[in-house]
């Protein structure tokens, strides 16, 4: 279990180091991308930097508690209850939430505002891991069309629907995609995977047929310059920012995009500012960090003997890295513009805390696994329930340090 990962003692240290690195880059980039608009809005250019640091501190404290102090099975146990909790919360948002930029996404409690949909992403992973993990443990195959094995999917669908009417298509898509990916990993038949792809394509065609403006959305996605001052503006500005970075970028603080040219410069489009100021090599470096993070998390998952733990780690990998790559793809125009944040780099308090909470679960799974193998080493029986089939044996720990 505690095998080396690249330059690190173990994959957990790798995850922690990279997350801290990404958060540092995030801090710097959020400041550079936001000081102009923050100065205009709040009178101080440091507004978003301060808040980023504040949320990061909160998130890291949360990470320590969840990663080291609480057994992750506690969260899984509440999987079903989490659904009802977020059902109520999202209904509250839809009914009493605060509207910003035409979307009702925020709950303000005691002066602090939260975006519950960010936590829903995490909740969906926990719900899916719990129900699909127990299927996997029993050797049953999940199915999107059969009740009760599709219960988790339906629950995710309901939550995604409530997010969609805020409206927040990006988050809704992520919620649903995370659940579907968990289904796929948990053994959804390839036929159904194929059918799902077909249904999605058909849905897209049907939606375009129903409302022709969606076709122009697609055309704008393919060629934003056809309406560079209108609906293509954000994409064009994103490309201009990215492109002007060249090989090495304009260097810290010198990019022009943040001067109100690029909307959402410090949030969803932070990657464009990063590309402008750090260039192609900077962007490659950032991508590389995310890939190493993905590999480290994957390694932890691979070494996990618990089905639910494994799905949890995999779901978090999709959430943290998959979402990041989706964001980059969106910013540089491979995917249409839907609101997906870039983990650690985009500014967003709730998102940062949720993402660090997700990383914490990975660490909790790792720590639990280490504890288990140590217990086995000392010939003490583990309390962790395991597959009744017992078809495979535990991976023997090698070179335990203790």
């Amino acid at each position, binding site marked *: 279990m505690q095998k080396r990962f690249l330059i690190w003692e173990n994959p957990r240290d790798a995850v922690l180091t990279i997350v801290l690195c990404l958060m540092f880059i995030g801090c710097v980039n959020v400041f550079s991308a936001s000081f*102009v*608009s923050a100065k*205009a*809005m709040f*009178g101080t250019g440091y507004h978003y930097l301060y808040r980023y640091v504040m949320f990061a501190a909160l998130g890291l404290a949360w990470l320590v508690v969840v990663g080291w102090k609480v057994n992750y099975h506690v969260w899984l146990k509440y999987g079903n209850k989490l659904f009802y909790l977020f059902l109520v919360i999202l209904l509250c948002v839809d009914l009493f939430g*605060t*509207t*910003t*930029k035409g979307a009702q996404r925020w709950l*303000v409690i005691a*002066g602090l*505002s939260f975006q519950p949909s960010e936590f829903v992403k995490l909740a969906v992973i926990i719900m899916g891991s719990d129900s699909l993990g127990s299927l*996997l443990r029993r*050797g*049953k*195959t999940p*199915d999107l069309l*059969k009740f009760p094995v599709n219960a988790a999917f339906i629950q995710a669908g309901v939550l995604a629907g409530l997010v969609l009417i805020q409206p927040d298509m990006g988050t809704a898509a992520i919620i649903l995609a995370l659940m579907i990916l968990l289904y796929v*990993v*948990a*053994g959804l*038949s390839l036929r159904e995977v194929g059918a799902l792809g077909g249904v999605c394509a058909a849905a897209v065609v049907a939606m375009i047929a129903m409302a022709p403006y969606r076709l122009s959305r697609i055309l704008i996605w393919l060629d934003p310059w056809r309406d560079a001052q209108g609906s293509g503006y954000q994409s064009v500005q994103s*490309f*201009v*920012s*990215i*492109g*002007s*970075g*060249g*090989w090495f970028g304009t260097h810290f603080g010198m990019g*022009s995009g943040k*001067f*109100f*040219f690029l909307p959402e410069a410090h949030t969803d489009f932070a990657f464009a500012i990063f*590309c*402008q100021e750090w*260039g*192609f090599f900077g962007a*490659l470096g950032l*991508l590389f960090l995310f*890939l190493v993070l*993905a590999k480290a998390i*994957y390694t932890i*998952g691979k070494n996990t*003997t618990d*089905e639910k733990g*494994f*799905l949890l780690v995999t779901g978090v990998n*999709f959430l943290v*890295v*998959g979402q990041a*790559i989706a964001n*980059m*793809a969106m910013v*540089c125009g*491979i995917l249409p513009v839907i609101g997906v944040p870039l983990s650690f780099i985009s500014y967003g308090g709730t998102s940062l805390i949720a993402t660090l909470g997700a990383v914490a679960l990975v660490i909790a799974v790792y720590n639990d696994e280490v504890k288990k193998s140590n217990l086995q080493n000392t010939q003490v029986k583990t309390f962790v329930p395991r*597959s009744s*089939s017992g078809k*495979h044996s535990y991976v023997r720990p090698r070179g335990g340090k203790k």
Partner: protein
Amino acid sequence: MSIKEKFDLKKSKKRTGAVGVLILAFVVGVVLRLFWLQIVKGQELARDAKEQIAGENTELSPRGSILDRNGEDLAVSIISKSLYVNPQAMDDDPDRWERGKQPQRNPRRVAANLLAPILGLNAEDLFQEFNYKDRCFIWVKRTLDPKVSAEVIKVLKENKLSGFHFQDESKRYYTKNDLAAQVLGFVGTDDKGLEGIEASLDKLIKGKETKQGNFFDARGNLIGESGMNSVQGPKMNSVYLTLDSNMQFILEKSLDEAMAKTHSASAAAIIMNPHTGEILGMASRPTFDPNNFSQAASNAFLNRGVAIIYEPGSVFKPIIGCAGLMEHLITPTTHFHDEGTLDVGGRLIKNWDDKGLGDITYTDVIKFSVNTGMAHLGLMLGGKKETEYAEKFGFGSTTGSDVPGEEAGILYNPEDMVPSDVATMAIGQGIAVSPLQMLNAICAIANGGELLKPFIVKKVVSPSGKLIIEGHKQVVRRVVTEEVAAQMRTMMEKEVSEGGGKTAQIKGYKIAGKTGTAEKLAVGGGYAAGVYIASFVGFVPADNPDYAMLVVLDSPQGAFYGSQVAAPIFRDILQQILVAEGIQPSDSSGLPSVESIMVQPQGTNDLPQMTILDSGRVKIPNFAGLNMRQVAELIQQGRLALIPHGGGEAFKQNPAPGTILKNDDTVDVWFK
């Protein structure tokens, strides 16, 4: 659905790997796309990025200042902000608030209520303007004072009101309000000089706009500077006038009093340096404040020192007298028998009192302004010589000065003159002159016989200190010999010391002068019955004058003789100027000299003091027993204005001792 094969954790991990590979494909896509955007299209997009931040900003150079001869500001321009609003952009922008903190409000109502008191406008009117949603540009108020605009900026920022913008505009301030208003003129809102020096030197001092390449954010604000800061361009040329604002102040104040006292329709007064032609002071009534020129009556804009012509009357007599002396027709002692009236070709020339003085000299003719004597001299000269000398003295054409708006005046065509014209011209009738023309001609007598070109622009200096225009003494021609000029000065001095101009006397000073009273020309021709123009021209000290001055009152009510109304004003003005400028009396008998005050320093401790109160107001002491110089010093300490009457020791004052006055209030003090 049958389960063909059992799915377990191992397979699940394999699938995860497969999904990972799919995601990796996206990563490759992102890398390729970044390569395309940053490397292949990089330069093109970098150019786009540069183009969209590049722009031009306009730097405003404020209009050049106008200053007096000592460098005191008379007119200055500063860049001020004009506030405009785009009513369509006034809706609250949620981005300006933290989530959940955006207030429920009507921003138009809030803006109207907050801005109205600051701008001094009606809140309802503003609210109505803010609701013109079909318009995107409305001036709220132009050229705000810096204090006001700073407050507006603060209020807009604190309350997060959108849609308001500032435009830098140059605003003209006349620092001394109506001081020399007609000389300075004024500037329209488009920075175009409309009257006076502002108009005549418009090209030299007009503010400039210089465009400069710069970087702007998407909202149009300069990058690197707060858009609220205005960028000032290079300064413009400055105009220094020959005016002395202290003398001008005395002129203005005295004309105000003269207007109040005589209820004249209008008035003009000019002071010149007779040796250089510099115009030291030039005031005109009615007047206006160029800071609010739009509220003034348009007749107030007229610079009556140059822009009106009038029949000079007896003030013209020294000119004809000089002609007589030059042509050796008379000497100061030539005898003339005055019978009180003189019949010239059927027209009866009468003295002012119809009385004859009998056997007199030509000195007496000037001294007592004897019409018959002058008419007689005129007839001896003939119309041709009269006109020749009048033209030599600069009448009938403009003086060529740089004072804008000068009139040329009217002379007879000598060919058309009948004897009565010749006779009346000698007493200053039937011709029309401008005040500046008249004073300039007298200056030629005062300075020893040279006609100078008067000037009011001392210099125009570029920001780098280069002289663009420099006014200097310009001799037009020699008009009379030194000797004749000296003779005439003596005759004119006698007029003040012994003759009709006694009311212009100032104890201790030798003053030369000439009174004048002429019937006013009616608009339709002929004379307006009972309407007079009273004037007094003179210079001091009589033998080597420092100052020459002319006072003209148009249509005084009640007393109308030049000696009754114009000469006392002349005296009051001159008295203050002599004190202010420290001109020593030529005869100090009966007057404490400057030295005598200075050798008694302990005496100053006993001097009554001006009490300057915290409010900036002053309490005046009892001036009784002080000489004029001491009074003037005290008055200056209190920043008050002294109106002296008579000369010697103060014995009476108004307001009474202990009265509390504010700056620029006047104090009348009588001396004996």
